[in-house]
């Protein structure tokens, strides 16, 4: 980056369309969504003016005013005031305003003008505002404010050329405020006057289609039916629509194994490629369609505007555990991945509520747990996949994680004590919008690619190590079980077994759990490898066959190993265990202390082990 390159900042209220404009100007694909608080950190990009001058564009988190207290809004304030360590004071600010709500959005624009920075107003979503009956006058607005005003529609790419032309070089001088600087009352009155002049509202408000949808979606009873119905449809779709692409991946895997076996002579190296790499990594990759499906549905919820409604519905419930509905947004994001979920807690005003939310966020079942659940849940149903029962069990798994998170939050919140300043629930409910399909598909592909990259790096490395550990040192015995017992894995399994047996697992399952502390998905690949030895050469490695093999596994006394009690115990362990180092790193950063992250890791791991133990022993006690 040239040192002389000027910096332009995008500032505005939450959900005014800053990131959509950022993506449109820079060609980036930063996360967007139809709810307040999607952007929680700075995003940098570059773009060129029509005259070819390269500029740095910084997308700021949304804020309502420059004295807001939540951590994301503090970042915006620091940049605009020139106090941010990593970002210079911007040479120009594009103030993005939602044209439907000039009265509110103008207040921040006026505060930015007071900072003596050149400002250009990007009046976003003008056509939608006019459709609602508002009569806008951008020229009048520009005259009153003394800054250029450019009407745009960022999601459709309209008005971008005009906006770039407005950033003429040399940059315009800062505007002189027409109100008493620093006097909040005077500034507010000026803003309201300007809004009245530049945006004439219809005499009477009329009910919009969003109002009509909300009458059902936010109804105290019907709203819950809608919420649970949406969640159930999500889980049902994950199974029902993924079976065909999963079949393709299985076929590809079998084809690859066949090709390698046909081309290579029998030996350790062929075994490494077929059983170690293709089958181990393939056992995880096979769940890619379901991961994509999950992200697709989360993307739909985020861009349609439903996320804020879910938070609204949950507020009553959340208040009983000492959190607000606002904390439910980061928790909802954690269903996809705990990392953005933990980062999204920056939108929470109360520091104590934020800490508690960070602590419990990893208990929202993330996408990395999905392969484990997908392997284990059908084992409770005799191996059958799909259907309403499986969707109901899946939903129950998510509910168990969420309810436990709430319970722990309740205890923790009580221990941390009340806030010094009382925070009340307040949330903007954005209008429902048609999803931005382009963004959703790009986001889904990005997540899919990240999953495959993970499979091609961490999971591949662990599969190779695990193959070596389960192959060497070799014994002279021809019995596969004796051969495995002689290897490193066999010895580790034997050492672990006394510890994990009370939880219902044998040493191999214990070893698979150990490997999954690197990444949860590894468990499926590890199980495929570790329970592979007794398989005949003709069998093909598919997820159904892994389950069949696990279902047929027995203890030394001939009793079934993977009983419903053992499978439920395994599921419980994976619901609760925190097996994600990147999450711990982000927790340490966001909570400002490694102690918090280490404490969380130890607590969740011990909790998972104890919960598994109790569940297994209780079920076994009652079922014999």
């Amino acid at each position, binding site marked *: 980056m040239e040192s002389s390159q000027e910096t332009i900042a995008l500032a505005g209220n939450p959900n005014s369309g800053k990131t959509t404009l950022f993506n449109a100007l820079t060609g980036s694909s930063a996360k967007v969504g139809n709810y307040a608080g999607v952007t929680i950190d700075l995003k940098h990009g570059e773009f060129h003016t029509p005259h070819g001058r390269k500029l740095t564009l910084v997308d700021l988190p949304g804020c309502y005013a420059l004295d807001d207290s939540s951590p994301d809004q503090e970042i915006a304030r620091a940049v605009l005031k020139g106090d941010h360590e990593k970002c210079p004071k911007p040479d120009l600010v594009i103030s993005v305003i939602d044209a439907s*709500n000039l009265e509110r959005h103008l207040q921040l624009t006026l505060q930015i003008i007071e900072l003596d920075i050149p400002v250009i107003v990007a009046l976003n979503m003008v056509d939608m505002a006019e459709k609602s009956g508002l009569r806008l006058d951008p020229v009048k607005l520009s005259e009153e404010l003394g800054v250029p005003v450019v009407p745009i529609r960022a999601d459709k790419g309209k008005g971008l050329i005009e906006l770039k032309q407005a950033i003429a070089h040399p940059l315009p001088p800062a505007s002189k405020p027409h109100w008493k600087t620093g006097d909040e009352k005077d500034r*507010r009155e000026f803003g309201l006057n300007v809004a009245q002049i530049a945006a004439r509202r219809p005499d009477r*408000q009329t009910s919009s289609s*969003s109002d009509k949808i*909300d009458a059902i979606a936010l109804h105290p009873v019907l709203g819950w039916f809608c919420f649970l119905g949406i969640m159930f449809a999500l889980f049902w779709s994950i199974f029902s629509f993924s079976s065909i692409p999963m079949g393709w991946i299985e076929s590809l895997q079998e084809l690859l194994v066949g090709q390698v076996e046909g081309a290579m002579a029998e030996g350790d190296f062929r075994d490494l490629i077929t059983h170690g790499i293709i089958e181990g990594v393939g056992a995880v990759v096979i769940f890619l369609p379901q991961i994509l499906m999950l992200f697709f549905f989360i993307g739909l919820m985020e861009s349609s505007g439903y996320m804020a409604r879910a938070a*609204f519905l949950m507020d009553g419930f959340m208040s009983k555990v000492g959190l607000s*509905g606002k904390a439910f947004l980061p928790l909802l994001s954690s269903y996809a991945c705990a990392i953005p979920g933990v980062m999204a807690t920056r939108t929470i005003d109360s520091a104590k509520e934020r800490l508690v939310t960070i602590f419990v966020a990893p208990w929202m079942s993330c996408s990395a747990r999905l392969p484990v659940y997908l392997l284990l849940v059908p084992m409770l149903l005799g191996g059958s996949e799909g259907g309403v029962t499986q969707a109901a069990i899946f939903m129950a798994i998510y509910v168990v994680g969420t309810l436990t998170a709430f319970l722990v939050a309740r205890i923790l919140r009580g221990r941390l004590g009340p806030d010094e300043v009382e925070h*009340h629930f307040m949330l903007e409910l954005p209008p429902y919008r048609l999803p931005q399909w382009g963004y959703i598909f790009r986001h889904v592909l990005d997540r899919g690619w990240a999953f495959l990259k993970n499979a091609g790096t961490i999971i591949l490395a662990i599969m190779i190590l695990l193959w070596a550990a389960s192959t060497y040192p070799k014994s002279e015995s021809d019995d596969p079980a004796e051969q495995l017992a002689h290897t490193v894995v066999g010895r580790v399994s034997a050492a672990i077994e006394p510890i994990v047996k009370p939880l219902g697992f044998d040493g191999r399952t214990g070893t698979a759990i150990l490997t999954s502390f690197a990444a949860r998905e590894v468990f499926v690949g590890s199980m495929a490898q570790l329970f592979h030895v007794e398989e005949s050469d003709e069998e093909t490695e598919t997820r159904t066959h892994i389950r069949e093999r696990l279902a047929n596994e027995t203890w030394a006394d001939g009793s079934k190993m993977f009983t419903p009690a053992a499978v439920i115990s395994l599921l419980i362990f994976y619901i609760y265990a925190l097996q994600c180092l990147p999450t711990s790193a982000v927790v340490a950063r966001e909570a400002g202390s490694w102690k918090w992250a280490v404490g969380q890791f130890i607590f969740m791991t011990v909790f998972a082990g104890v919960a598994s133990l109790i569940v297994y022993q209780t079920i076994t006690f009652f079922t014999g």
Partner: protein
Amino acid sequence: MPSTTVQDLKIDSLQSLSQAQVGCDFQIKVIEGPGCDQLRKLGFCETLQVRKLADGRNLICNVCGTRMAVSKELAEQVKVTPLEA
């Protein structure tokens, strides 16, 4: 002992947004209380129109074209008067 002013009597005669009837339009007359800064940042200002859309623990209203959900405690701090039909 504090004396009651005309302004106090005027405020007392207003209803709060939490008491207001659902489905009706109102004009915001006074915002007072510990949450008034928070309310103003989110667009609740004196003289603006507000329509109450739903009641409950958190009520829903429309202020200048934006739907907002606010807690009953905050809505108690917004004093309104009905808009004449």
